[in-house]
């Protein structure tokens, strides 16, 4: 991941989702060793939002948003959190027992995997890039990565008095 000036990075987090009809949330909890932000099996009821809107799972879903665990606006830290969640060996994940068990569950249950990366920075910040090693990790799970990166212009009111 490309480093950007921390003061120019306003907000960042990452999400990961596993979904599929055969998904068993407790099994993924045990495997990933982290509590998800939201999870449910197909046909199970669950609640979202502070008003507790009740829904029924159209398919199984295991979803984690790193902002639950990290408050930093450093996107690298959020990606690192996901990497460590998926593998005990960041140097050689493809030879790692935990990662290979996750891959086996994904394959056997035909789960879809998607990572989303959110980052917003101020004018002058360098847009982040996705590290090839992380992309390879998600590729191995036949997963995808969606990026939602934005650079904001400064507050127009801050330009007051600067007109030539």
């Amino acid at each position: 991941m490309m480093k950007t000036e921390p003061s120019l990075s306003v907000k960042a987090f990452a999400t990961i989702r596993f979904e599929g009809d055969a998904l068993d949330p407790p099994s993924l909890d045990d495997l990933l060793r982290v509590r998800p932000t939201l999870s449910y099996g197909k046909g199970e009821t669950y609640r979202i939002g502070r008003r507790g809107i009740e829904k029924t799972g159209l398919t199984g879903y295991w979803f984690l948003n790193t902002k639950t665990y990290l408050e930093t606006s450093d996107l690298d830290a959020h990606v690192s959190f996901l990497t460590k969640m998926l593998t005990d060996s960041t140097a050689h994940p493809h030879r790692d027992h935990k990662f290979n068990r996750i891959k086996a569950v994904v394959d056997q249950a035909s789960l879809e995997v998607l990572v989303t990366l959110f980052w917003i920075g101020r004018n002058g910040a360098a847009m982040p890039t996705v590290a090839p090693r992380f992309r390879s990790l998600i590729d191995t799970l036949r997963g995808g990565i969606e990026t939602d990166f934005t650079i904001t212009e400064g507050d127009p009111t801050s330009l007051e008095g600067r007109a030539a």
Partner: protein
Amino acid sequence: MLDVPEEDVGAAIHSIKAAARLRGADNIVIYDNGDVTDARGEEIGNIYDED
């Protein structure tokens, strides 16, 4: 009009859509009270619920 900074709205929308199994390209509707619905009109969250 939402009384929330631009970056917070963007982050909230991303979080709500992801939790609702939506993708970036999926359409949503945001109401003045912060409620967010998917393209079918099903409520999927509220901007003010996201910190």
